[in-house]
């Protein structure tokens, strides 16, 4: 059972990631050929080098700052509000909770308020 579970888990969760990693090492011609290869016929690690400048440029910087502000700001406040709501049981607590829950129901794209 353990062997079967290990094989199934590896196939379902690890193999697709291996495929992504291996495909990044293939040449464009090998990647596009009709019969996919499990192991790259020739290794092309330069793909990572080519992706490097993008990783260290403004894109990477904006990702870092978004992550930093996400960790430091809204999430901390959200947790704080949740703890206070549970511990203090304030008046209209259910209304506040419902309003917080309502923000989940807004599609993310609807939060992109158009600039005027």
């Amino acid at each position, binding site marked *: 059972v353990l062997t079967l*579970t*290990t094989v199934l888990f590896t196939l379902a969760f690890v193999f697709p990631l291996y495929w992504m990693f291996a495909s990044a090492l293939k040449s464009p011609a090998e990647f596009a050929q009709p019969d996919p290869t499990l192991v790259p016929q020739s290794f092309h690690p330069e793909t990572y080098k080519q992706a490097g400048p993008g990783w260290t440029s403004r894109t990477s910087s904006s990702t870092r700052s978004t992550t930093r502000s996400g960790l430091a700001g809204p999430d901390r406040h959200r947790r704080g509000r949740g703890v206070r709501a549970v511990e203090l049981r304030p008046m209209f607590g259910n209304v506040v909770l419902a309003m917080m829950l309502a923000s989940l129901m807004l599609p993310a794209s609807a939060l992109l308020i158009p600039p005027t």
Partner: protein
Amino acid sequence: VLSFQQDNLVTDPVWVGLDNYRNVVTDPLFVTAWVNTFKFTGLALVFGYAVPFVLAVLLNELRHFKGFFRLAVYLPVMLPPIVSVLLWQYFYDPGAGLFNTVLSGLHLPTSAWTQDASTAMISLVFVSTWANMGGATIIYLAGLQNIPGELYEAAEIDGAGLWQRLRHVTLPQMRFILLVMLLLQIIATMQVFIEPYQLTGTTTPSTITVMILVYRYAFTVNNDFGLAAAMSVLLFVVLGLFSAVYLRITRGRTD
């Protein structure tokens, strides 16, 4: 306010009252989008709600390689959603895709996957489940590990088997987490966008969801943010009503 206006972000907005709502409701794709969204949500719950719980129970029972299994199940969550979808887009490719290559190699019938109306929706559900089940599994696992071991010991002394322990100890102890996760998953799956957008596009009737319709109104067909806002408000209202009813029904069970 935007849902009561005609606004393309270029010219001045025009107040149109309830016209946007009328236009949205009378759109031939309106019913299709809702049916597809409910279909996706239903299928995503069958796979994305039940499978992570079963996996968590299984992982909780394992004695060996615990770290490997927990890491493996959470790995897909670390990929950005669009990367997961692009990876699966390659797997699903009817020509040189990995799935059809493997099926051909085994002399089994191949499929058009996302390009066939009958298999497109389930194909989207597989991607979504694979990409997101790690988070739910870890939450269930944390809940399972908080169940006092004495309860299981008492059940075993009373002669309870595996199924009876699951039914009379695990499920009642996990009830609150299960109910909250169900609500959050329904809210999240009804807002599905990336999977149909990337895998089947915005024009395939069998996979047009409510969010795809919102996108079409805003960016492709109508270029009218007022229409898109009206559709978003309808989705918000439906989810809000569902949540209110759900919380009222389940209140007694979670107190």
